[in-house]
């Protein structure tokens, strides 16, 4: 019985991953075309990610001069695995949880903390200067987003008095965390962009590095890297939906449907930032993160603590 539920949960995580990645790629394309002033043609764009994948899969995986071949091959797989673990920590409906741990928030945090390792290895391994700069940059970036990310997640867990995610969702029965902790979601999404090195925080892969950490990657590795990056975004959106938007809570429709809708509501703006916000210089991002975002996230947890104390009265 229990095993069956886990199997169902694992399968649904797989399905959500594939659908989420595809949706993310599609939305990115549509928003990009709209911003560029081209005809949007959503149906036509539906096949574009597949076509890109097919064209990339037919290319050889090239190598560079004296790369660290093993870690280079490992990096995309590691990123994909970490993103999948992060997504597995999120309950998609009551009882539908693949990684059934009592500390779901900590599991998510641990998986996301290791994303730095995957991106650094991806930049470091090819033995090439621009990817290496990308890898270095991500370490500076990683230390700057990780702290706000962890702190706002802890603040969201406070009202539930639990580190498991299901109680956090049910604790929002009457009031969603987005209202209760207004600072939480914006800070979380900003940290999430850093985590997925996407859009304004695509520092390791910026155009100024001609692609940065994935500059030298080709063939199947490139597909895996891109999809893993999108999966990180999906995991961030799903966790945000569960922790700030009340997860599966909602009238009329089944919980899973609400969860999917809320995930999409967060995923689309995350994807779209790429076309509206320019890339932020590394040093300024680090300064802003330590001088503004981290204090704000501490304020967030402080407010949550006071609310919890008042509620306990």
């Amino acid at each position, binding site marked *: 019985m229990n095993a069956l539920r886990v199997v169902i949960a694992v399968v649904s995580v797989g399905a959500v991953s594939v659908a989420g990645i595809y949706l993310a790629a599609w939305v990115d394309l549509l928003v990009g075309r709209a911003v560029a002033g081209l005809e949007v043609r959503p149906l036509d764009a539906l096949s574009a990610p597949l076509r890109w994948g097919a064209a990339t899969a037919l290319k050889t995986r090239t190598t560079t001069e004296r790369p660290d071949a093993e870690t280079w091959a490992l990096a995309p797989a590691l990123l994909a695995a970490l993103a999948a673990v992060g997504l597995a920590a999120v309950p998609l409906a009551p009882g539908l949880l693949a990684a059934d741990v009592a500390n779901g928030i900590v599991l998510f945090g641990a998986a996301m*903390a290791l994303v730095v*390792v995957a991106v650094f290895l991806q930049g470091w391994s090819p033995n090439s200067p621009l990817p290496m700069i990308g890898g270095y940059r991500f370490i500076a970036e990683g230390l700057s987003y990780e702290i706000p990310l962890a702190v706002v997640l802890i603040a969201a867990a406070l009202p539930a008095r639990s580190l498991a995610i299901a109680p956090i969702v049910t604790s929002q029965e009457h009031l969603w965390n987005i209202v209760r902790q207004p600072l939480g979601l914006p800070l979380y999404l900003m940290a999430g962009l850093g985590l997925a090195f996407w859009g304004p925080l695509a520092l390791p892969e910026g155009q100024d590095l001609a692609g940065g950490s994935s500059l030298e990657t080709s063939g199947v590795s490139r597909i895996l890297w891109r999809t893993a990056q999108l999966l990180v975004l999906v995991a961030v959106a799903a966790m945000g939906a569960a922790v700030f938007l009340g997860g599966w809570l909602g009238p009329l429709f089944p919980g899973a449907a609400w969860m999917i809708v809320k995930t999409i509501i967060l995923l689309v703006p995350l994807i779209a930032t790429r076309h509206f916000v320019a890339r932020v210089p590394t040093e300024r991002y680090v300064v802003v993160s330590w001088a503004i975002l981290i204090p704000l996230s501490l304020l967030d947890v402080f407010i949550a603590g006071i609310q919890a104390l008042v509620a306990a009265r």
Partner: protein
Amino acid sequence: MILNVTFWAFSALAVFSGWRVFRADSMVRAAYWLLLSFAAVGIILVLLKAEFLGLILILMMGGEMTIMAVFMVAFMMNPAGLNPMTMVHRNSVAIVAGVVSFLAIAALGLFARFPVARAPAGVDPTRKLGVELLGNSMLVFQTAGVTLLAAMIAAIAISSARGRYGDADQGSVEPDQMVTAPAGDVAAAAAHDPAPVISPGVHQ
């Protein structure tokens, strides 16, 4: 059964990757082998129902080992493993010490009598830990916090470029670059090259 197999697999991984730390030529690899060892121990802790501690260990070491890797790249030669390298001294002494401490602790584990009292099912260890940390053991928690704060301040003070009496590197001396062959490898060194063979840190 499955639990036992998983346990042995992660134990083997922890020990293997711990050993690889000191056998890697590349500094980045060494740091990440150590991370792998920590991650394996973290998963064993999760299997032992110390879920929170295991996950926190992984979370913490993910950051720390990355910093360590960058540290190595910044400070050490040969970070990428382009040259084969072994940087050891008193190798045989160290091996003996390692084996002796392994045997001593393992013997302790095998022959000492410990009470057997598994954690009862149905209690949330994380909750108990939290209550303990912020209730009975508040002092420990506070001490840890203050210690960490002191460590942060001390670290900044020690590593700062400007000390109390001016620049920290004022009057600094480049040490003698030549280092004689380590005791454990004299024979090997003599067989190849009678001259001092290792001068780490010399770049061209």
